[in-house]
């Protein structure tokens, strides 16, 4: 759901850009405080990981295929602010190397896929985890639901931006984007749960960094 240029108008592009810059500045500050600038190589490698994971396709209904987004996974494994930085890096490289998503629309794309998706999934995950008194099943349920909402929320945000720009009427944009991503979200949710259960079995110490 990378928005190309031409689909959102300049006011929407500028507004989303300003919000994104604020969020990234905050993320830089917070991660600097928590991890130190010394964690930079690690974050670079993990951003490359998200990028590589997005290359693996999975089948969706009717012969089409979707790919993993990874925002929820990054948020759960690494915490929201680190995830914001990593997802933003992925989106910047996708724009500047692969022309996925427009230059002017970069702010909107980062907001949808790198910020909204991260925070929605993280707080749903954390809410369910604390509500169910934090055992392994609670983590997996929280991750699954969080991942589904991350995809649907970012698709809806994308549709709202397009509708506000006057490109596409509300009654087309919302069903088209959100409708398709209700199904894509199921794939995302299943994969996130599978990845998390593998990590819980092999390197449970990685998760202790987060919800401690």
């Amino acid at each position, binding site marked *: 759901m990378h928005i190309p240029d031409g689909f959102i108008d300049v006011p929407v592009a500028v507004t989303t850009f300003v919000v994104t810059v604020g969020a990234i500045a905050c993320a830089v500050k917070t991660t600097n405080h928590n991890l130190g600038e010394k964690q930079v190589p690690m974050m670079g490698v993990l951003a490359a990981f998200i990028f590589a*994971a997005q290359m693996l396709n999975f089948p969706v209904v009717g012969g089409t295929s979707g790919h993993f987004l990874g925002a929820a996974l990054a948020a759960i494994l690494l915490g929201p602010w680190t995830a914001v930085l990593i997802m933003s890096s992925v989106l910047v490289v996708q724009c500047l190397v692969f022309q996925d998503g427009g230059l002017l629309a970069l702010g909107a794309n980062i907001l949808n896929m790198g910020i909204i998706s991260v925070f929605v999934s993280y707080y749903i995950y954390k809410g369910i985890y604390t509500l169910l008194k934090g055992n392994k099943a609670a983590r997996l349920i929280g991750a699954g639901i969080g991942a589904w909402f991350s995809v649907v929320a970012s698709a809806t945000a994308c549709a709202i931006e397009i509708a506000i720009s006057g490109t596409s009427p509300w009654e087309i944009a919302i069903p088209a984007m959100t409708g398709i991503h209700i199904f894509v979200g199921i794939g995302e949710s299943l994969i996130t749960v599978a990845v998390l259960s593998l990590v819980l079995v092999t390197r449970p110490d990685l998760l202790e960094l987060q919800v401690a």
Partner: protein
Amino acid sequence: MKHDFIDKYSNLDSFIHRLDPRTKFLTSLALTIAVVLTPAGNWKVFLCYFLILAVLILFSRLPLLYVMKRSLVIIPFVLMVAIFIPFFKQGQIAVSYNSGLFQLSITYDGILILTGILIKSWLCILSLVLLTSCTKLADMLEGLKQLGVPHVFILILSFMYRYIFVLADQAMRMQQARDSRNFGGNYWHKFKIIGNMIGTLFIRSYERGERVYVAMLARGYNGEVSAIRKLHYAPADAYFSLLLFILLLCPPLLWW
């Protein structure tokens, strides 16, 4: 490693390739904004912008077929969002079809909006292809740093760029291994396998990140990275920017 799809033509030599990355970034952005601001229906203005882009693409010596192919990247999004607009937009009806159950009609306003979006996004993607195919990512990042992007963010991006090749390779090998073992079965099984692949990739990446960090510490890394790369803003950059801005301003002044 087979990743010639990354940064494929940034090593060519042309007038455009030699421009400073800041010049290229800012003029691309200006062109994109100019195109997006032009209301649908001003075909002459769009034609002028297309001519400017066409001249620049010819100057850049990029293979035209490659530019065309890359510009198709917008198609999925167009299909998903824009293609229904002519059917829903209110206005004077161009074509109408009544099947008894429902009425399908295409309006002139809808067609106008759809063509406007198609032209705008195609012109913008041409400009983006031109920018990214003529600039090495390392230069671009240095340019963005000069333009005020936070240092940490630039560092993360440059590390990411280095490891994309390694990790993409790993992912592709896993996919090949999976496919050669007759990847099939039911839906749940497939998702579990992909989940395991991504999980394995995550753990490997994490451990690689730890090793990289330790290796850098051993070589005296203290959170600072100094680059040898120096950008050079030449007079040609100033002339080029000025000329392009004037060319961008002319069509709207003439025909709006």
